[in-house]
């Protein structure tokens, strides 16, 4: 299987099949991340398309010097903010980011609603690491690489996020043996 670097080289030379391999490899990852940031399917699909349009615009002449997820993560995040901001003209980027990182409370039921509420008040980084680990199915190493931070930092953030869930009366039942 070709590495991302090899595929990028081929796309730089004009190979659309190589681009398709890249697209298939990262499509679902981008879509899930975009859905989480935007909170609805249509916006997520828009972000998905804009992300790969953005990537396509880099060729020829693109040289990847870190992992693909490292490169795509901020692209998806910024495009998601932009999509959300379109309908919220006077809201700041920080406020939008705070909102889009939270789950859709209105759709949650029962214990999930409680879980959603607790997650909303977690610090952004702790929540994001939790979701990258247990929803995006990324290993601790992949998270560390995607964000280019030490694995110890990832473990620390995850530890604190789970500790909060464990200590909150609304979610502590998840941790009963």
């Amino acid at each position, binding site marked *: 299987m070709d590495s991302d*670097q090899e595929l990028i*080289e081929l*796309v730089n*030379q*004009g*190979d*659309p099949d190589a*681009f*398709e391999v890249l*697209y298939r490899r990262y*499509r*679902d990852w981008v*879509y*899930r991340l975009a*859905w*989480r940031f935007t909170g609805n*399917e249509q916006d*997520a*699909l828009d972000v*998905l*398309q804009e992300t*790969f*349009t953005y990537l*396509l615009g880099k*060729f*020829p002449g693109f040289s990847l010097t870190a992992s693909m997820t490292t490169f795509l993560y901020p692209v998806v995040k910024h495009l998601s903010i932009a999509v959300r901001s379109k309908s919220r003209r006077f809201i700041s980027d920080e406020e939008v980011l705070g909102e889009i990182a939270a*789950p*859709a409370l209105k759709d*949650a039921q029962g*214990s*999930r609603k409680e*879980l*959603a509420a607790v*997650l909303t008040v977690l610090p952004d980084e702790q929540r994001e690491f*939790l*979701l990258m*680990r*247990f*929803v995006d*199915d*990324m*290993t*601790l*190493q992949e998270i560390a690489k995607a964000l280019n931070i030490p694995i110890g930092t990832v*473990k620390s953030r*995850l*530890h604190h996020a*789970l*500790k909060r*869930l464990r200590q909150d009366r609304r*979610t502590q039942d*998840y*941790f009963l043996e």
Partner: protein
Amino acid sequence: MTEKKGHFDEDLDLRISPKLSEDLNTLFKPQFSVPPELDRAIMDQANRRLVQRHWRHRIFRHISFWRVAAAAAVIIFAFSLNLTQKPGPTTTSSFIVEAQAVDIDENGRVDILDAFKLARHVEFSERTEKKWDINGDGLVDRNDVDLVALAAVRLDKNKGVL
């Protein structure tokens, strides 16, 4: 426990119950998959952009750094063998020979103009000099040009030009 990645989690307090995993996924995974029409639209866009673009067949098209690095590694290895066998003044003279080889315009410094001038020689002139065969493959071509360019952008010039 999320078994899929369980073997990576050595710390017990970084694992979660199946119920918590299920609820997180229900809250955060999209219910609908990407429609095939969107896949087709993106691939059509890629086809239009990539296939119809006029790719110039430059002689000095940028080679992957891995191939250049591999060629440089071979040369470094070859020179290191030479250095091992002939210590002292020969070490210094080998370094000087390397530096002189990539200083194409012989102005005492190695920069992109050396690569540019070599490229112009190869592309427009029939005149080439044996000393410009940087990688020692018997040809003076874009591979040599790329090695000169690599020498120009090397951060630590003292480690050896190549």
